[in-house]
């Protein structure tokens, strides 16, 4: 009696597993087939287009690529340096801005007002315009002689633009930490400052790590904007090449270099999202 019951159950089980395997196989086959159709279709469309021979010559020329790549790569190092410098400055300045904005001490009122205006203005002006205004406006003031280098001015403009964004991300993170956490920190005898440093900030910042990184992916691309005031970073170098040789391949080289940095960063952001949506 019990024996037949177990045999019956295991038969059902085998049936279910076989069905599951069939479903998985069919799913994989459909995915493979649809990929071939879509990607192959796109490739066919491009490769058979009337302009393709010319595009291949001007955008994907291997000779031009190897010629231009070393110089574009040189330019890209400037991008990386500016990116790292601006990122470090933004992380610190934005945190200070966020802390000033959430404080409620009356002594900080003027500062709070200023930071609010700063955040509104810096976020409200297109980054490209800010780079232009600072790049040409600051030297014209002639406060510092000789005028700061365009690279520095560009970096300052990017820092201003991104500090506004990032401070709002920080602020959202800090505000998402339950008030009971601050209470508990005070109750064990910590000062307000210690409560922020040891309890509220570590939780708040961890929660907004994915959007913070997301902003830095955007920053990495926006470094190219400083080229409009002169510095020869990857995009600018590629553009000069293109102007001289009437070939766009160096721009593809620059694009690949940007991707080489931003794609890994995007994967890190994805992983932080995690299946549970929490970060430890």
């Amino acid at each position, binding site marked *: 009696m019990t024996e037949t019951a177990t045999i019956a159950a295991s038969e059902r089980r085998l049936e279910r597993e076989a069905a599951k395997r069939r479903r998985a196989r069919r799913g994989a086959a459909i995915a493979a087939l649809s990929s071939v159709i879509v990607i192959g279709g796109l490739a066919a469309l491009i490769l058979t287009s009337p302009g393709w021979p010319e595009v291949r010559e001007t955008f994907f020329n291997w000779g031009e690529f190897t010629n231009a790549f070393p110089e574009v790569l040189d330019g890209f190092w400037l991008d990386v340096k500016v990116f790292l410098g601006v990122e470090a400055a933004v992380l610190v300045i934005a945190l200070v801005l966020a802390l000033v904005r959430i404080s409620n001490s009356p002594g900080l009122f003027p500062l709070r007002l200023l930071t609010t205006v700063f955040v509104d203005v810096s976020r409200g002006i297109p980054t490209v315009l800010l780079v232009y205004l600072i790049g040409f406006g600051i030297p014209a003031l002639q406060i510092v002689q000789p005028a700061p280098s365009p690279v520095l001015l560009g970096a300052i403009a990017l820092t201003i633009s991104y500090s506004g964004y990032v401070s709002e991300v920080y602020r959202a993170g800090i505000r998402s930490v339950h008030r009971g956490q601050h209470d508990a920190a*005070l109750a064990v005898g910590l000062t307000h400052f210690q409560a922020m440093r040891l309890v509220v900030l570590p939780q708040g910042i961890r929660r907004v790590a994915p959007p913070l990184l997301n902003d830095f992916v955007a920053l990495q691309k926006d470094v190219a904007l400083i080229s409009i005031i002169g510095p020869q970073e990857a995009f600018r170098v590629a553009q000069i090449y293109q102007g001289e040789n009437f070939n766009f391949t160096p721009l593809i080289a620059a694009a690949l270099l940007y991707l080489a940095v931003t794609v890994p960063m995007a994967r890190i952001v994805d992983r932080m999202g995690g299946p549970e949506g929490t970060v430890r």
Partner: protein
Amino acid sequence: MSVAVLELRGVTKAFGERQVLQGIDLTVAEHEAVALIGASGSGKSTLLRCVDLLEEIDDGDVLLDGEVITDPAVDAVAVRRRLGYVFQAYNLFPHMSALRNVMIGERYAHGAKKAEAEERGRALLARFGLAGREDDRPDNLSGGEQQRVAIARAFAGSPRALLLDEVTSALDPELVGEVLAAVRDLKAAGMTMVIATHEMGFAREVADQVAFLHGGRILELGPPSQVLEHPQREETRRFLGRLLEAGRI
């Protein structure tokens, strides 16, 4: 008689238009446990928060060891270091291990050396039945375990008095006992306590005095045998009657 550990004199507190405390007088002697009972919204939590200076009172005074602590000139941080507070929802720090939760006050508020704080933290966790759970994050602990960590954390600073805010209200019924045992242990050790609670059986067992709060006032105050068994006021009788109906006594 020696000076009371805690004394409240005519304490009032309003949130906007809502008068939550309307003149509270209460004295808690050394080694004494006072149970605050009353319906939700009667002001139990607010009273405890005001004593720990987590809320600013409007009028009256709170004294700790005979010293007025509600004067604006008094350093609130120094006062809180002499008191311990256990929250209804535990409020453990989720990004720290159980041990670090217990150590943090010692380490940063009382300036203990790391090794000292750690030793004391381990001893306290063991005392409340949490040996072996030192490295667990609060997420990995049951509600009862979390609340026992919270009690250890509040007790770690060797407070003059412990303020317990409905410490079993967020727990599944089968976990209530272990937390009450921890409080019983503290009472046996002579800890001065103010306990806001819905557990009448526990109040009767542990408390030296029971205070019945209603509408921001203490309507009845006395030993449990009197307040819980022979209540004088109609409001107290009605409150206890409702608990009886709900099977909570």
